[in-house]
């Protein structure tokens, strides 16, 4: 394919966007649940073990939260793109006339 070739399926894009938004909602809920469950509770009373573990766990949960934001961005982006695609199509249709052999822009 060349960079000039474009195929648009706004419905597919919209469905994918909504799907990612749903995944993001569920994922954020799951991650917040994880945060609430254990909090800063140390798994063992040995600081040389639990200190670094809790720090790592915190970093992993932070990454989970960022991943949730990624998913949301992907979903929102796909939905916006789909809406733009539809709007552009409507504008093009409104500005086109049928010439017997095809549509022409006016």
């Amino acid at each position, binding site marked *: 394919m060349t960079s000039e070739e474009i195929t*648009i*399926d706004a419905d597919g894009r919209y469905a994918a966007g909504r799907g990612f938004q749903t995944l993001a909602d569920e994922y954020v809920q799951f991650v917040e649940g994880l945060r609430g469950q254990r909090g800063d509770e140390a798994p*063992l009373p040995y600081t*040389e*073990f*639990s200190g*670094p573990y809790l720090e790592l766990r915190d970093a*992993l949960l932070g990454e989970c939260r960022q991943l949730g934001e990624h998913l949301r961005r992907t979903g929102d982006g*796909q939905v916006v793109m789909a809406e733009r695609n539809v709007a552009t199509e409507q504008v093009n249709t409104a500005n086109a006339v049928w010439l017997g052999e095809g549509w022409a822009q006016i």
Partner: protein
Amino acid sequence: MSAMTDAPDVAAGWSLLGLPPLPATDGLDRHSAELDGAGAYQDRLVSDGGRVHRLADVNQGQAADAVHAYTVGREGILPQAADLGNRVTVTSSLLRVAKEVVGWFGDHLAEIAVVAGAVVVTAPELLPRLRSMAGRLFAMLRKVMEHIGNVFKRLSAIYQKKRENDVAVVLHRKWIEDFRLKKGPNATRPKSITKEVDAAWRKKHGDEIDISRAEYHELPPSLQAENGASARVALDIVDDAMKRGVDLKSEKFMEDAASKVHDKWLERNPWAPDHQKLPYGQLSAIEQEKDRVVVRAALDHWSVRLAERTRGARDALRMT
């Protein structure tokens, strides 16, 4: 207190050995189960995300390629989710190892405790030996726990270094953009490489580098250091603010954070010229903006990666 030391014959001997109580391991079980759940969720996310992504598969063009790269590309969010899932699972496995270790030492210490209970009447002179043996075993247990703790530290450090690197790459590219805007697209900025810390780099690449034409990872260590340090400071500020629930989009946060970035920069660069040695509030607008750029890079490092991947997808298209 662990169940294994609760048995009456063990408990009596345990007190004779003078050992601190062995911790219960159900906390390890709870954390491990939680992480296993998170790992399984990541796996499911990768699978569901792939299915959802395919709904838009018919789309073709630069925008579709950019979304594809962002979602399933080499550094896309779904491979990231898979990588995160792996690391969560590794962490959970280490918790299980810790449980096994506590159990193994606990079993042996319990046996020594039973012996101590038995000899206290018949051969009390053996107690000091048993105490010493138990003490050494207990110290070994703590040492192994420390080793596992060090593995956790190492995993955190790898992650932290990767984040710093991501932000430092952005800071260096931003500097190149500004430099070209100011000096023109053909301007160069050669730097002589003389520092000891760059000896290995110099051997491989020579005595000079044009930093306006080099990517961050191509720079010698001494020239990476400043952006790396700024990235570290800004990420720490953002992490801390996130933990405290600060509104990261507020102007107050931006100005406070930029002020801290400036203070830390001054600590590292005491040679700074007078117009940069001022407190943040008294700096010129241009100088203040330099500090804000660092904060923004730390705040945006995930979305900046989106821009990088999008650019990568475009570059790939140009080559086809």
